C-alpha cells in the first residue's frame, strides 16, 4: 500500500493555501502586503497556486519607503506583470509631504516606523479588510504569539493579550465596521522551510539574496549598503565587500552578511549552519527588547 502522508513542505504549502483561500472566502477586499522580500514572494507564488487557473483575486500592496533597493522595485514590477495582478503603491514620501508624519533625523534615522502610518492610510483608502503578510512565527519572539488571523481594531492596533483563540483550522474573521485583519499564511514556516520551498518550486528572487560585490559601511556590527539614504559618521569608511542579504528591508536599516553563496544550494547550506537569526541583521529590531511588539501593537506589519 502506498504511504499516505505529506512531507513537511507539502503540509506547510497545503496549510498556507487553505488560509489564503479562507481569506478570499471570508473577506470582501483582501490584499497581499508585498515587500519584495522572499517571504512575500513565496506568498505571491502560493496565491497563484491557490486560485489557478483563475488569476490572483486580490491586489498586491507595496509600501514604498523611498529607501528601497532598486533591485526590489525592478523585481516587483516584473512579478506584477507576470502574475497579471493589480499593484497598489503606498508612498511614505507622500505621507511626509502631506505632513502626516515627520522624518526622523540623526545618523540612524530610518523610515521604518513611518511606514505604519502610510500602511494604515493605504489600507483605509482602498477599503482593505484583510491584509496578508509573509511574517513568520520563528522570526521574532512577539511574532511567535501571532495568530494566522490577527484582529486589528479601528486604529489598526494589535492587542496581544486579548487575542482570539485559534483552534483546528477554523478561522474567525468576524469584525466590526472599521476594523481589519492581518493574516499570515506562512506563520508556521521557518527560514529554512522558505529556502527549501523556493528551491523546490524554482521561485525567482531579487539578485540581492545572492552573493555580490557591494560598497558598504559597517555600523554597530551591521553591514549597511552605501546609499544616498545613509550618512557616514566621522570614523566610518566605505568598504567593498562580498555580501548577500538574508532579508530585504530598507537600504539604511537592512544589514548584509558576508557570503560567497551565489546559488540556492549554497544559501541553504549557509542557512543550515548559520548561528544568528535573519532579523539579527535588522537595525529596526535593535531599538529595544520589545521593539517588534511595540511596533506591531501600533499597526506595523
Amino acid at each position, binding site marked *: 500500500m*502506498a*504511504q*499516505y*502522508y*505529506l*512531507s*513537511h*513542505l*507539502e*503540509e*506547510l*504549502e*497545503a*496549510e498556507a*493555501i*487553505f488560509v489564503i*483561500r*479562507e481569506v*478570499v*472566502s471570508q473577506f470582501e477586499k483582501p490584499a497581499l502586503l508585498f515587500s519584495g522580500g522572499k517571504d512575500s514572494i513565496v506568498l505571491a507564488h502560493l496565491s*497563484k*497556486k*491557490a*486560485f*489557478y*487557473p*483563475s*488569476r490572483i483575486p486580490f491586489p498586491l500592496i507595496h509600501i514604498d519607503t523611498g529607501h528601497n533597493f532598486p533591485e526590489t522595485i525592478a523585481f516587483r514590477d516584473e512579478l506584477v506583470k507576470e502574475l497579471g495582478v493589480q499593484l497598489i503603491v503606498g508612498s511614505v514620501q507622500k505621507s511626509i509631504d502631506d505632513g502626516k508624519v515627520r522624518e526622523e533625523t540623526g545618523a540612524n534615522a530610518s523610515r521604518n516606523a513611518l511606514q505604519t502610518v502610510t500602511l494604515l492610510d493605504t489600507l483605509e483608502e482602498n477599503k482593505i479588510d484583510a491584509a496578508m503578510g509573509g511574517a513568520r*512565527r520563528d522570526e521574532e*519572539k*512577539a*511574532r*511567535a*504569539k501571532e495568530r494566522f488571523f490577527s484582529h486589528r481594531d479601528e486604529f489598526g492596533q494589535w492587542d*496581544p*493579550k486579548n*487575542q*482570539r*483563540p485559534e*483552534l*483546528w*483550522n*477554523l478561522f*474567525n474573521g*468576524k*469584525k*466590526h465596521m472599521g476594523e481589519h485583519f492581518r493574516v499570515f499564511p506562512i*506563520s*508556521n514556516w*521557518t527560514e529554512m*522551510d522558505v529556502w*527549501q520551498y523556493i528551491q*523546490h518550486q524554482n521561485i525567482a528572487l531579487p539578485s540581492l539574496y545572492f552573493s555580490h560585490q557591494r560598497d558598504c559601511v559597517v555600523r554597530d556590527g551591521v553591514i549597511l549598503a552605501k546609499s544616498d539614504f545613509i550618512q557616514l559618521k566621522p570614523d566610518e569608511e566605505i568598504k567593498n565587500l562580498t555580501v548577500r542579504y538574508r532579508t530585504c528591508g530598507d537600504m539604511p536599516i537592512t544589514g548584509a552578511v558576508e557570503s560567497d553563496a551565489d546559488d540556492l544550494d549554497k544559501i541553504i547550506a549557509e542557512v543550515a549552519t548559520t*548561528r*544568528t*537569526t535573519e532579523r*539579527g541583521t535588522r537595525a529596526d529590531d535593535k531599538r529595544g*527588547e*520589545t521593539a517588534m*511588539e511595540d511596533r506591531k501593537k501600533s499597526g506595523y506589519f
Partner: protein
Amino acid sequence: MSIQETNQLLRFTTAGSVDDGKSTLIGRLLYDSKSIFEDQIEAVKTSSEKKGFDYVDLSLLTDGLKSEREQGITIDVAYRYFATPKRKFIIADTPGHIQYTRNMVTGASTANLAIILIDARKGLLEQTFRHSFIASLLKIPHVIVCVNKMDLVDYDEEVYQKIVKSYKDFASKMEIKDVHFVPISALNGDNVVDRSNNMKWYEGPTLLYLLENVHIASDFNHIDCRFPVQMVIRPHTHEHQDFRGYAGRIEGGIFKPGDDVKVLPTGFTSKIKSIELDGEAIEEAFSPMSVTMTLEDELDISRGDMLVRPNNVPNVGQDLDVMVCWMSTNSLRGRTKLILKHTTQECQVMVREILYKVNVNTLHREEGVEQIGMNDIARISIRSAKPLFFDAYRRNRQTGSIILIDPNTNETVAAGMVI
C-alpha cells in the same frame, strides 16, 4: 506535486508551569538540536543578567510578550520550531495552570502528540490529571510522559516505575491510546537527545528518538472521504471558459479521479473528473492536502457544501451534542444564540441546554449547572439553523470540531468536539 525531501511534520504540545521544567526541556530540545541562534542566546543572557539571575533563564526564550516577561509566566500559546534530519517539529508551548485551560485546548487542537511532564519528586499531581484529560478530550493521538528531574531522585529506577504504574492506572480511565514513558533530566540532558549514562536500567528510547519515530502517518482519517468545499474557482477566461473547480482541503479519505461522489446537502451525484493544484494533476488526494476538484457534471455547488462517497456519508443534522471548552469571561447559559463555524460552514446556533460540567481535576460530572464560565469544560446540546455534515470528533478531528462565536463581540467563545 512531489517534494522529495520528505521530512514529516510533527506538531506537539507541552503543558506545564515553570516549576516542572517545561521551559528547560524546550530550551534543551532547541539547544541540543542547534535551533537556538547566537543572537537569541545573547539576548536571553543579557535579560537574565538584568534581572539579577545567576543562570541563563531559558524560559525567556519562550515568553515573548512584555507582560509575560514582566510576570515571568507564559500566558499565551507560543509556537516554537526545530528540525532534525528526520522531522520538522512545531511546538505549541502552553501554560499549565488551570486558569489557562483554554490555551491548552488551543495548543492541543492541532497537535499529533502531547508531552506531559511529571516531577519525579512529586509524582502525579492535579495538573498531570488536567493535562492528560485535555490530551484525551482533544484526541491527541500520542502522549509521551516525561518523568523529569530524575537527577533529584538519584536516578532511582524504583521512583520511576512507581510513577509509571500510577499513571497507567489513572490513564486507563481516559481514552489515551498510545502512551510512552521516558525518565529524563531536562536540566542535565539525560535521555532528552542523548542517552543517559546515569540510568543504565532504562532500555527504552530517548525523548527525541520517540519524537522522530512515533508513527504519525495514520493520524489522519484516510477512510471516510470528506471534502468541504471552500470556494468555487471560475476563471471566465478565454482559455478556461468552462472551468468550474471546487477548491478545498481534504478532511478525510482518499479521493481519485473517476470516483463517484455525492454532494451534500443537495444529494446529487457525479464523478470526479480531475483533481489538481496549479494545473498539475493529482492521482490521489488525501488529508490534509489542499486541492482543486472538477466534476463530470455541472452542479450547483458552493462554499459550505461537502463532497463525500455515496456509500459513506457523514451525519447530517441540526441537533448536536458537543463537549465544549468555554473561552470567554462572559458565561454561557442555556437558550443563548451564537454563531457556529464547522468545516467551511457558518450558521446560527441555539444552545439548548447545558447537560453537565466536567471537573477537569477529578473527571466528575456536575449536573444541573445553570451556567458555565471561562475555562469550563461542559457537555451541551445545540441546534443549528441549517443542516451540518459532521462526524464524531473521535472519528475525525476536522469534521468533528466546531467553534462558537459571540455575535455581539465577534470573539471566539468556545471550542467544541462533536460527540
